[in-house]
Every structure is written in structure tokens, then in C-alpha cells.
């Protein structure tokens, strides 16, 4: 056994940064977290004894909010690309966009929850659908909110000079988290909204948008 001297404190065995690896491990763990929530929702489908269920999901509105979240993800990579090239203006602009789009998404979700509560009388106490759906999407919304808080903090820190090209890894890690929140929503939108609500009994036909009917896919 030999002893090396002058080893760099920041050397890692794999050459990968500890913090980035931590974020990936965390995301892996979060997969189990959301997987369990979505799984719970799915196995409780169609077990309701009473009250509204999937027929009240609004696909047009959720498609828009999904689009907003997807575009925030795009803004996130553009912000990262900006700071990695040292273009702080680009970074700040796109980061602000991410936060705004994220907030719009939260707004959509609050609108949806309010609609459910006011018009359909659906709260987490109403029935199984209310419990599983609202807790699942609520946890997702909480993740989005944490992401917004995180990115605002990074944005402010960048004005104080604490975030710069040299530690763009901070932005990359926050970005990984943000994209993860996005892919969770991709799954929820596909599995819970589209597949879940497809052919749900009592779905109002008027809901088919005129545009869709016009091109003959209604």
C-alpha cells in the first residue's frame, strides 16, 4: 500500500460530481415515490361507491397546462445552456420564464381543484377518486412549487454573484429536478387524464372542442 500526497480534495472515484449524483439518486427514489402514488390511484380506479370521478377531468384545459409545463422544461435547458456559455442575460431571462410558466401551471391546478370543489363537490373527503387524484396531483404541485422556489433563489443568488458560469452545476442540478417534475406530469397526463378519462361514463359530449370536431376527429 502506498500513500499519495497532494490528492485533490475534490477528486471522486467515478469522476462524477457528488451533488449531481445525489440528485440522480434522489430522482431515482422519487420515481418510487410518485410511482406508488400513481399506482395507488390506478388500483383504486372504478372502486368509487358514489360521487364524481374521471368524467369531470377537463382534457382541453389540462392539455394547455401540460403544454405550459413542457415549455417551461424547454426554457430550463435554454437557461442552462445560457449559463454554461457564460451568457448571464440568457440564463436570467429563461430562468424567469421557467418560474413564470411553473406558476401558470400551479394556477391551472388551483383552478382545476377549485372547479372540482365548487362545481362537482369533489374534495379529498368525497370519495376514493377525490382522495387518490387530489393527493397525487397535490404532491406533484408541491414538487412544482418547491422547484419554483428553488429557481427563484438561484435567480436572486445570480444577481448577488453567487451563481455564475463557474458553478453552473447548481443550475444543472435544479434543472434535473425541474425536468423530473415535468416527466412525472407527462405520465400523469397520459395515464391518469387521457387513459383514465377516455370513455368515462357521463362525459359530456359538448366538451369536444369545436376545432377538433371541425377536423373530423371529434
Amino acid at each position, binding site marked *: 500500500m502506498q500513500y499519495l500526497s497532494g490528492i485533490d480534495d*475534490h477528486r471522486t472515484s467515478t469522476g462524477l460530481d457528488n451533488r449531481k*449524483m445525489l440528485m440522480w439518486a434522489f*430522482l*431515482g427514489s422519487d*420515481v418510487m415515490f410518485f*410511482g406508488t402514488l400513481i*399506482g395507488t390511484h390506478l*388500483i383504486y380506479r372504478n372502486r368509487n361507491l358514489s360521487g364524481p370521478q374521471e368524467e369531470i377531468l377537463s*382534457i382541453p384545459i389540462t392539455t394547455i397546462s401540460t403544454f405550459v409545463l413542457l415549455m417551461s422544461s424547454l426554457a430550463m435547458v435554454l437557461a442552462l445552456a445560457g449559463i454554461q456559455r457564460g451568457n448571464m442575460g440568457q440564463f436570467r431571462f429563461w430562468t424567469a420564464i421557467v418560474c413564470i410558466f411553473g406558476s401558470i401551471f400551479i394556477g391551472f391546478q388551483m383552478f382545476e381543484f377549485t372547479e372540482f370543489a365548487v362545481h362537482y363537490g369533489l374534495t379529498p373527503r368525497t370519495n376514493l377518486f377525490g382522495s387518490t387524484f387530489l393527493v397525487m396531483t397535490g404532491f406533484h404541485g408541491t414538487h412544482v412549487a418547491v422547484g419554483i422556489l428553488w429557481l427563484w433563489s438561484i435567480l436572486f443568488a445570480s444577481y448577488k454573484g453567487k451563481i455564475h458560469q463557474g458553478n453552473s452545476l447548481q443550475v444543472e442540478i435544479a434543472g434535473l429536478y425541474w*425536468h423530473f417534475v415535468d416527466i412525472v406530469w407527462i405520465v400523469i397526463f397520459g395515464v391518469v387524464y387521457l387513459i383514465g378519462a377516455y370513455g368515462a361514463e357521463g362525459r359530456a359530449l359538448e366538451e369536444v372542442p369545436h376545432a377538433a370536431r371541425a377536423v373530423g376527429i371529434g
Partner: protein
Amino acid sequence: MTTEHAHVEEHNHPGPRQYVIIGAILAIITLIEFGVFYLSIDPALMTWIILLLSSSKFLLVVGYFMHLKFDDVRFSGLFFAPFLIMVSIAVVLMALFFNLTR
């Protein structure tokens, strides 16, 4: 080391142009999903179509926006190992709860 590493990575990273293209594809797929929802087809077929479309969106975001396609394979392991475990567990649970095993 971190900065150095980041620079090395950038060589094979997609740039803003590709990101915008990916973003457009994501938007189009979402639109297709929206359209498919209003088709009157067999629910099973619809399920598979949506699963296919959603997973391609999933893979695009993970692969490009999260750089997994270009990054160290160990990150993919950390992410996809639990993903596979979770999907298997969910499938088994659904089979159990929908009484497919009786």
C-alpha cells in the same frame, strides 16, 4: 474539476437549436395525444397509443433535456433501475387488484 467536466460534456451536448426542436416535437406529440382522446376507438388500442406517445415524450425529456443520453451511464442506472422496479410493482399490483390472478 466540475467546470472542466462541464466543458468536456458540452462538446457532444445538443445546443439551443436542438432544444427548441425537441420542445416543438414535445408540443406536437401532446397535440396528437389530445386529438387521439377524441377518436372513437377501442379503449385498449387507445391505451397503447397513449402509452407509446407518453413514453416517447418521457424519453425525449430524460434523454435530451436531462442529458441522460449524453451523460455518464451510472446516472441512467440510478434512474432507470428504480423505474423498472416501480413499473413492475405497479403492474403486479394492478393485476392483483383487478383480480387477474384469481
